Each structure stands twice: as structure tokens, then as C-alpha cells.
């Protein structure tokens, strides 16, 4: 067990669900308070995603490279590193910047003005949904990578 993985996943999910919060808060008839809450959610989500980037990177460059990667690549599912980890480590880099952009959109106008801007509301919802779905896909990829590692260890254990 490595607490860095848990912290990375926790921060990533806080980030993803912060943008789900924005999506839900802006659905349907909304008030100025909806946009004020969305601003706070965007701030929390953006900070969480940047922190998840740092924590995940620290783990990836340390334990993952030296201990986990060689085991996965020698196991029955080496593609969980070659495809899934490689994709995850690069696609994740897009998320904090997309989050920052949504944060900037939510601060472009006053909440009073934003309530009247239907297209702007839909635009923010679309982008927030993208962050949420991509964030969930990060969790799914993390599951696949862990499964690749666990399967490799199971093969080693049963061959003893």
C-alpha cells in the first residue's frame, strides 16, 4: 500500500467531482448564487487537479518507475503500462489547464450578468462535463494499471 496513490486519486476525484458540481449547479433555472458556488467549485477543482498532478508525478517518478513498471511489463498484462499508463500520464496533463480555463470563464463576468448569458452557461457546462468525464477515465485507467500490477504479482506468487 502506498499513501501517495490514495492521495493522488483522492485529489483527482475531488477535482473531477468539483466540476460535476459546477455542471449540476448550472443545470436548469439558476440564480446568481449558482455562479458564485460554481466559482468556488472551480477554484477547489483546479487546485485539486494541480495538487494531484504533483503528487501523482512524485509517485510516478519514484516507486512506479523503479518497482511497479518492471513488474507490470513482466506480467500477463504489459499493455496496462505501455498503453494505459502512457496515455494516463499525458492526458492528465491537459486537465489542470482546462480547469484553469473554466475558472477564467466563470470570472469573466459578474454573477448577475452570467445568469442572463444562456450560451455562456451551456458552454461552461459542456467544458465542466469534459473535465468530469476525463477525470473519471483517469480513475478507470488507475484501476487498470493496479490490476496489471496485481495480476503480475499473482502470477509470481502462484509460481513459487
Amino acid at each position: 500500500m502506498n499513501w501517495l496513490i490514495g492521495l493522488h486519486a483522492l485529489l483527482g476525484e475531488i477535482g473531477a467531482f468539483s466540476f460535476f458540481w459546477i455542471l449540476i449547479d448550472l443545470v436548469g433555472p439558476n440564480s446568481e448564487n449558482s455562479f458564485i458556488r460554481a466559482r468556488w467549485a472551480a477554484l477547489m477543482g483546479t487546485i485539486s487537479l494541480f495538487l494531484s498532478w504533483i503528487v501523482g508525478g512524485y509517485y510516478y517518478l519514484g516507486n512506479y518507475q523503479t518497482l511497479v513498471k518492471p513488474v507490470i511489463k513482466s506480467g500477463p498484462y504489459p499493455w496496462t503500462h505501455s498503453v494505459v499508463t502512457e496515455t494516463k500520464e499525458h492526458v492528465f496533463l491537459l486537465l489542470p489547464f482546462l480547469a484553469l480555463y473554466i475558472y477564467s470563464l466563470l470570472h469573466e463576468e459578474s454573477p448577475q450578468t452570467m445568469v442572463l448569458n444562456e450560451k455562456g452557461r451551456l458552454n461552461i457546462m459542456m467544458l465542466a462535463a469534459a473535465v468530469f468525464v476525463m477525470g473519471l477515465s483517469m480513475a478507470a485507467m488507475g484501476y487498470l494499471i493496479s490490476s496489471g500490477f496485481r495480476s503480475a504479482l499473482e502470477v509470481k506468487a502462484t509460481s513459487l
Partner: protein
Amino acid sequence: MKKTNAAKLSLIITTILITAMAVGGELAPELKAGLTQIGGHHWTGKSIVSFVTFVFLYAAIPNRGGSKQESSMDFNVMAVVIGSAILMFAYFTAHYIQG
């Protein structure tokens, strides 16, 4: 934060740059070596380059007058971000299949 146009252009360019570094680093060992020199590991190098690029572009690009949100939906942003993610997944899948 009022520089929405700067944030949008910075996001699009940084996303394309990340994709280019991810795929280009595999195709050109010199690029991967250069990124490794920047950060000690190629992934750290990509992280530093992408962060510095976003911050630099955001600071350098002047704000455009008027409200961006009233004019259009950001389908171009969506296309670049989702397209880049699919492209990277497709590349690493093909790279693995080809051995």
C-alpha cells in the same frame, strides 16, 4: 481573472504542445533526451515545458475586448482537448501492437 481569450489560446496551444511532446518524444529520441535534460525525466520535462508555456502565453497574449461567452460555444477547445486525448491513446495503442 478577465483574460479569457488569453486563457483559451494558452489552453489550445499548450494542449497541442503536450500532444506533440508525447508522440514526438517516442518518434524522436533526441526530443525525449532534451526533455529529460530539462527535468531529469522526460515526463517532468513535459510537465515543466507545458506549465511554463501556458503561463508565458497567458501573460503575453493581450485580452480581447467584449464578452467571449456571448459569441460562441467552445467547440474548438473541446475538439482540441478530446482529439488530443484520443490521438495519444491511439498512438500508444498502435505503438504497443507494433511492438
